């Protein structure tokens, strides 16, 4: 999760703990989103069988690999965009 900058020195005790907590939350959410996306892509909704069949299993593995790739790719694209527009500026910005 390099994009959140965890792993840098964290001074106080409270900060260290909440950094670990935050990282766990990020991982949980990502697992959640991965599951939601790949269930939709690979497993039909009628549930005629309770086991994953061969085709579904292979699909899930490939789907996970592609999900991580898209994650990386989007992260890179956003970084490029932000650099090209300068630190202060727009594009994806939310201005309250």
């Amino acid at each position, binding site marked *: *999760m*390099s994009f959140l900058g965890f*792993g840098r*020195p*964290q001074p106080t*005790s409270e900060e*260290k*703990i909440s950094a*670990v*907590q935050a990282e*766990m*939350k990020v*991982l*949980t959410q*990502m*697992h*959640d989103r*991965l*599951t*939601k996306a*790949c*269930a939709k892509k690979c*497993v039909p*909704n*009628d*549930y*005629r*069988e*309770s*086991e*994953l069949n061969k085709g*579904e*299993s292979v699909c*899930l*593995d490939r789907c*996970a*690999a592609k999900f*991580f790739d898209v994650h990386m790719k989007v992260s890179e694209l956003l970084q490029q965009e932000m650099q090209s527009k300068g630190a202060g500026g727009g594009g994806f910005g939310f201005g309250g």
Partner: protein
Amino acid sequence: MDGLTAAETRELEQRMQKQQMKVFFGLFSNLVDHCFMSCIDDFTSKSLTGRESGCVARCVQKHMALSQRLSERFQEYNAQMTQQQQQQGGGFR
């Protein structure tokens, strides 16, 4: 993860337990919603039909298998990322 004192670790564990309960409850809720939406279609009575009941059971089982499989892929990916970061970042602390 390293660099925590014993007291910090204890505090962290307590909070983690709470968070894990939340995570588990989130997974549980998603599962209920998904299996309900996928399996329940008959509103001519208020009890689950045999078909619906069976569908929910298969839905739960299949999703546990699915979640398990994706967890493994996710852990492999995280291990790989951590390794790359340590190689690139020098791995201090």
